[in-house]
Structures are given as structure tokens and as C-alpha cells.
């Protein structure tokens, strides 16, 4: 009889992500049998919002995250518009799409080069790139030098994406011009021309550097096409509004709203989104819809290990993000350009579509989506009409409810507002990382990141780099997620990558 060797390891903090995250894994005979992902910062934005003027929500919720403020501004504005019963005019809709596009490009470039790539190559030999663990760096020296140069080049390029956004937003991070009913900026001819040239520089880099780099890394680390698979259920709220249909579910979007379960594409009914709290430090009941969400904290709750609630669709676990959007576009052919990009790339890599459900699959989907978005917004810039209205007038109702569903770079994003006496009575945001980094639900189903870790082989518990790579492939954004560490928590063993 073989003795079972069981250890619990923790990576705290997991750096090179947005925010503060801790990862725990229980490993038995080199295999991860249980996993926990936990944020370690609580700011209480939803509490801060209560009692304020509803219009303030657009500025306040952007401060969830400095990497992805734009989608929060848009989801919040859409929740307000839903509550006010208004829709933006064409210019307002198109200009928001352009800002969101610039933010996607910025976020995807930052994620691959500055957050994730140092998992695969050494980087420069100066702080903050040293110290590092010397392990499993497999790219040849020539590739290493190229990646180092591109890492630095990507810094200069990603700021062009911020500029592209700021031309319409006023500034980035934290956009000024998104307001209920549309935008506050009147388009100018030079905004259009200077956007097009910045986009051209970005497209050149995405086509000639970013995508080739991801493919190079993917070929060297081919085994990571079968590591970190996850649960293969996908959810997207869709990206870029193409019409002014008031019902968000019926609205036409460039990347459509949808979900995939057991290989089949299905529609989304927002009423089926609920949040479980059995593993979360809340005394409020489970299965509440976010629009009726309740938040009664109890840090001493037995059996709980997270301040993240567990959002579920129809009681099931769903992954959100570029993989969800691109794999569904590929399977459904709902976006022919996206489907073609995925198909061509898989063919080039001699891989089947199942390879998308992996660490490298996520990086690949993110890069291809970056190209898709960049190509699309050049057309949108030309749709901006000079001297036409940018904003619809609004009136704050005494009481109303509103919902905004959108996709941040990291995945499906929902904002829900309830207004009473003209003030915010309730505000709930279910952000991409709440889906992906959610704890176990009432049925005991682990969240997507936890599922992606479970089953992974960890050769060296002193250096579990595979786990860090898995978690980073989701591009977690912990600042967006509400969280508090459990006081007095103890971990048996404590080792890092």
C-alpha cells in the first residue's frame, strides 16, 4: 500500500494580476484534488453607492478597476438608461463602442505582455524582473530576445490604445464622457482622423507582433493546450451594440449574447442568473437574483471561505471571457470573421477546437479577439456623424429598476440598480472575475478557476508554476470583486512559484 502524500499549498499574493489574489490547492500524489481562489481586499463599493444620486454610479463603479473602467461605465450607464426608459442616439452608441474597443486592445496587450508573458520567458535581468524562479523557461535564446524587445515595445503601443479611448473619453483610466443617455463629447473631425491613425499603429502591432508571439509561445508550450481545461460551459453577454433595441436580450450585438452548455449554443435569460452564498461569508439567502441581491456579511460563517458570491446560470457554473466569446463565435458561426480567425489559427497549429479549452487556448482567443475588435472599430470610427446628437435627455424617476449587461475584456459584466426616492437604494455588480473566481456553490460545484486547477499535475510543490499559469490565463481582476480574508485562517504549507 502506497502512503498518500497530501499537502495544501498557497500562493499569496499571486502577482501580475489586477488586484490582490490568493490561491490555495490541495495536492495528493502530485495531483490537485481541491482548489480555492480567494481575493484579499474588501472595499465595499456597493455599500458606498447606496443613498447617492443615481448618476454618480457611472463615475463610482469605474473605480472598481483601473484596467477596465470603460465597461463598468457602459454597464452602469445602460442600467441607468434601462431604469430611465431611454436609449442613446446613434452617435452615443457608436462612440461608446469605440471607447470600449480601445480599452479591449489596451487590456489584452497589457495582459499578454506585462502580466502573463513572464511565465514563459525570463525578461530583462533588472528589477522588477529579478528575482524570479528559474524554471521551465523553454523558449530558445533568439525568441527570448525578441519577446524581451516586444515586452518593452508593447508598453509604448498599449498607450496608443489608451489615447484612442481618451480621444473620445476625455482621459484614461476612468472615462469622463460616458453619461446617462449617451456621451457628453461632440465629435470633431480631428477626433476621427487621429483615431484612425492610432488604430493603424495598433493593428500593425497586433497582426505582426502580438499574434505571432502568442503562436510562438503556444508552439513551445504545446502541452498547455491540454492543461487548465475548466468546465467547458461558456457565457457571454455580447459586445458592441449595433442597434437601439431597448431590450438588451433582443439587441443586436457584434459579438452576440449567448451561452454554451454541453456543446450546444443557447440563449440567455437574465432572470436565471442567481448567486449562491453557502461558501461565502454572508448570512443572506442563496439563489437570489442580483437585482434583488442582499448582502449581510458574517465573517465567522462556518464552512465559508470567500467573500465572493458564486454566480450561477440556472444553477450551473459558467466561464466568461475571450475563450467564451471566441469559442462560441466559432461554434455558432454567429460572427463569421471570428469563426474564420479561430478556424485558420487552429489549422495552422494543427489543433482541434477542444484545444481552445486550455491555458494556451485562452491566450490564443484573447489575441485573436484583439485583432477582431481592432479591425471592427476602424469601421465604427467612420460611422461617427459630425453635428448629430450624442445624448438623449433623461429624468431621474422616483423609483425604478435597471439592468445593464455588457462584456468587459475579461468577460460578462452585469450591473443592477434599484432607485427609490430618486436615490440609489440597491446596487449590485456581477463582474467577470466573480464568475471565473467564484467559490463552491450550494451544490458543492467549484468555480471555473477552481475546476481548471483541479486535476493538474504539480511535480514540485515548492514551485507550482503550472497553477500560476492556469490562474493568469483567466486574466483575473480581483479589484472588481468584493472580498475579505478570513481572520485566523491557517494553511498547512505555504509555497510559491
Amino acid at each position, binding site marked *: 500500500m502506497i502512503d498518500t502524500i497530501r499537502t495544501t499549498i498557497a500562493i499569496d499574493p499571486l502577482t501580475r494580476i489586477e488586484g490582490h489574489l490568493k490561491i490555495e490547492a490541495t495536492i495528493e500524489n502530485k495531483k490537485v484534488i481541491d482548489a480555492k481562489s480567494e481575493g484579499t481586499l474588501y472595499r465595499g463599493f456597493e455599500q458606498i453607492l447606496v443613498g447617492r444620486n443615481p448618476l*454618480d454610479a457611472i463615475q463610482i463603479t469605474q473605480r472598481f478597476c483601473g484596467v477596465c473602467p470603460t465597461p463598468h461605465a457602459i454597464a452602469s450607464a445602460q442600467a441607468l438608461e434601462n431604469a430611465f426608459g431611454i436609449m442613446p442616439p446613434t452617435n452615443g452608441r457608436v462612440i461608446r463602442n469605440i471607447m470600449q474597443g480601445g480599452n479591449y486592445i489596451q487590456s489584452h496587450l497589457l495582459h499578454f505582455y506585462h502580466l502573463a508573458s513572464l511565465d514563459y520567458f525570463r525578461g530583462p535581468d533588472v*528589477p522588477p524582473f529579478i528575482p524570479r524562479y528559474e524554471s521551465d523557461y523553454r523558449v530558445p535564446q533568439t525568441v527570448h530576445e525578441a519577446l524581451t524587445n516586444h515586452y518593452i515595445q508593447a508598453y509604448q503601443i498599449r498607450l496608443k490604445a489608451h489615447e484612442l479611448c481618451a480621444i473620445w473619453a476625455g*482621459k484614461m483610466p476612468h472615462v469622463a464622457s460616458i*453619461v446617462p443617455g449617451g456621451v457628453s463629447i461632440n465629435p470633431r473631425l480631428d477626433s476621427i482622423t487621429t483615431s484612425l491613425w492610432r488604430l493603424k499603429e495598433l493593428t500593425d502591432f497586433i497582426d505582426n507582433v502580438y499574434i505571432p508571439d502568442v503562436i510562438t509561445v503556444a508552439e513551445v508550450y504545446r502541452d498547455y493546450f491540454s492543461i487548465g481545461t475548466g468546465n467547458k460551459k461558456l457565457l457571454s453577454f455580447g459586445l458592441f451594440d449595433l442597434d437601439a433595441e431597448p431590450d438588451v436580450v433582443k439587441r443586436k450585438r457584434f459579438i452576440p449574447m449567448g451561452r454554451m452548455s454541453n456543446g450546444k449554443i443557447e440563449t440567455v435569460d437574465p432572470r436565471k442568473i442567481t448567486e449562491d452564498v453557502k461558501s461565502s461569508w454572508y448570512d443572506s439567502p442563496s439563489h437570489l437574483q442580483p437585482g434583488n441581491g442582499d448582502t449581510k456579511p458574517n465573517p465567522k460563517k462556518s464552512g465559508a471561505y470567500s467573500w465572493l458570491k458564486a454566480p450561477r446560470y440556472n444553477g450551473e457554473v459558467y466561464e466568461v471571457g475571450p475563450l467564451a466569446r471566441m469559442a462560441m463565435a466559432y461554434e455558432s458561426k454567429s460572427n463569421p470573421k471570428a469563426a474564420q480567425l479561430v478556424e485558420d489559427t487552429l489549422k495552422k497549429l494543427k489543433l482541434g477546437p477542444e484545444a481552445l479549452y486550455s491555458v494556451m487556448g485562452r491566450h490564443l482567443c484573447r489575441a485573436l479577439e484583439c485583432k477582431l475588435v481592432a479591425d471592427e472599430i476602424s469601421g465604427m470610427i467612420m460611422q461617427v456623424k459630425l453635428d448629430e446628437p450624442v445624448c438623449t435627455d433623461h429624468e431621474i424617476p422616483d423609483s425604478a429598476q435597471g439592468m445593464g449587461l455588457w462584456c468587459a475584456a475579461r468577460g460578462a459584466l452585469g450591473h443592477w440598480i434599484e432607485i427609490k426616492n430618486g436615490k440609489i437604494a440597491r446596487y449590485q455588480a456581477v463582474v467577470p472575475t466573480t464568475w471565473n473566481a467564484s467559490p463552491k456553490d450550494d451544490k458543492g460545484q467549484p468555480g471555473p478557476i477552481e475546476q481548471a486547477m483541479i486535476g493538474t499535475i504539480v511535480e514540485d510543490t515548492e514551485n507550482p508554476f503550472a497553477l500560476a499559469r492556469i490562474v493568469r490565463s483567466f486574466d483575473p481582476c480581483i479589484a472588481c470583486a468584493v472580498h475579505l480574508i478570513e481572520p485566523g485562517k491557517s494553511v498547512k504549507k505555504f509555497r510559491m512559484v
Partner: protein
Amino acid sequence: MSIIHSVSRRDFIRWAVAAPVSLNFIDDFLPKLAAALQEAVKEYPIIWLQASACSGCSVSVINTIHPSIKNVILEQVIPGHQLKLLYHGTLMAATGTLSLDTARDAANKYKGKYVLVVEGAIPTKEKGIYGTLGEKDGEPISMLEWIDFLGRNAMATLTVGTCAAYGGFPSAEPNPSGSKGVTDVYQMLNIATPVINIPGCPCHPDWFIGTVAKILLYGMPKPKELDEFGRLKLFFGRSVHNRCINRDYLDEGIFASRFGQEGCLLELGCKGPFTNADCPIRLWNGSTNWCINAGAPCIGCTEKGFPDAHSPIYQRR
């Protein structure tokens, strides 16, 4: 306010650490040149701690154009002066305990000689349990403990962004995590390390680089160079309102009452008259734009008391 008191220009020249790094290959071939170069290039250790933050200030500072972020991180921030970014949670290669060991070791090695940059407010409620970073003996280490250790041993502290300077959004009513800005936390912990505030939501890259350059070239700011909120008058000495592009509308009595309408934005809640910052002449993101030029009222993001003092955002104060 006792923002700066005890650090002289000489202290800041001592901030430059004579440490041989990354010149090894030259060292083998041209020892004299190497010695000369080491003499010429001064290195300045920096520890950058993110507390209750959204990372927006880091994302903003890496938008710096001249110098580029490559100049700032890998080369010289100004000729002859190199920053040595020893710890930064979002950018560094190391993770887990290795990353925190790096911060701890750096603070011990360069005790009294490094500059601590803080991004984000500090949660203080219930001994800071609302924000933690790493563990010791199975117990979480609060950001408050990190600030106590890193701040006490630093030569000076730069707060990047309004959250670190004055508390910002996490400290907005009802302040669920008991968050505070660094100056208030230092007062609470009896830490005498001088603080220079570089507020903004986010902090403009030029304000950060400019403050660093000012210190490297001319030493710590004299009291008269700072305002009562610990900010350099160089950047925060005049109001947004006084240099606003919409002053002609104000003079002519043309006010916008709806978003997208031309006119002075006071009726839409513009806080320009109550906000000191050089946005109207500096502009943002490669000088492409700024809030008021995008038809959006100034929300007063560089001010102490932001956001509560400026709420509701879109109503005239």
C-alpha cells in the same frame, strides 16, 4: 501640516545608492569605464506598494511618454539617474512569498534610503483585516502592517493618486473598510517619514515623473513649494477653473444645461472652481484630450474629500 520637515537635499543625494549592478560585462573588459559609469549613474531604490487600489494609477503612470516607461524602469529616468523598482505587485516577475521577501529584504537592506510609493488607501478598520497581503505563520498580514513596516523605514513616501493621498473612493461614506490616506495613517502610527502627495484619479504620469525629477535634481521640496494638502504647487498651484477652455462661455453667460450642449459646465456640476490641477494646460493621454474638452464636468478628483465633497457629481455645488 508636517508633510516635510526632516529630509534635506543631502539626504536625497544619499538616496542614490552606489551599488554595482548589470555592468558586469563591461567590468570584465573596461574596469576604468565601469568605475566611471558607476560614479555617473546614481541608483534610487523604490518600493511600490498597492493597497486598497484599482491599479488605475499604475496603469496611468506607465502611460508616460517622455521619459518612456522603458526609460523609467530599465534605463534612466533622467540622464544620470536610475530608479531601481524593487517591488511592484503588478509588474514584477516574482510571485508569492518570493515577491514579499523581495520587499522585506529591500526595506532592510536600504533602510532609511529607499522611497516608498503608495497606491491606494489603507484599510484600518479591525486592525486592517479588510486588506491583506501575504501571510506569516498562517495569519494574514494586513496592508496596515506593511505600511507600518515599509513606511517607518523609508526615507520619504510618495502617495500616487487620491486614494493614497487622502483616502479617495474606498473612504467614501460609509467607509466600510475604515480606509485612510497615508498621511492620516502615519499620524495614527506615529510615523515621521515625510510624505509628498501626488493626487488624481488617476495620478497623471507627468505629475509622478515630475515630482520624482524635482526631488532627484533639486532635493525634497521646501515647505513653500507645497500647498496645505502636501501637493507640489508646480502642478496643483492653480485652479482648473481659472485656466479653463470654457472661460469665454462663462464670460458671455452661456451655460450647458444638458450633456453634449456647448457652454460652461457649471450647471452640470463642474467642480473646476474648487479643484487645483493643471489639466487645462497639461491635457491627458499624449495631450489628446481632457475631461472638460470632452464635454464632461471636472469631478474634482485631485482634491482632499473627493468624492464625497463633490457629490452629487452632476449637480452644481
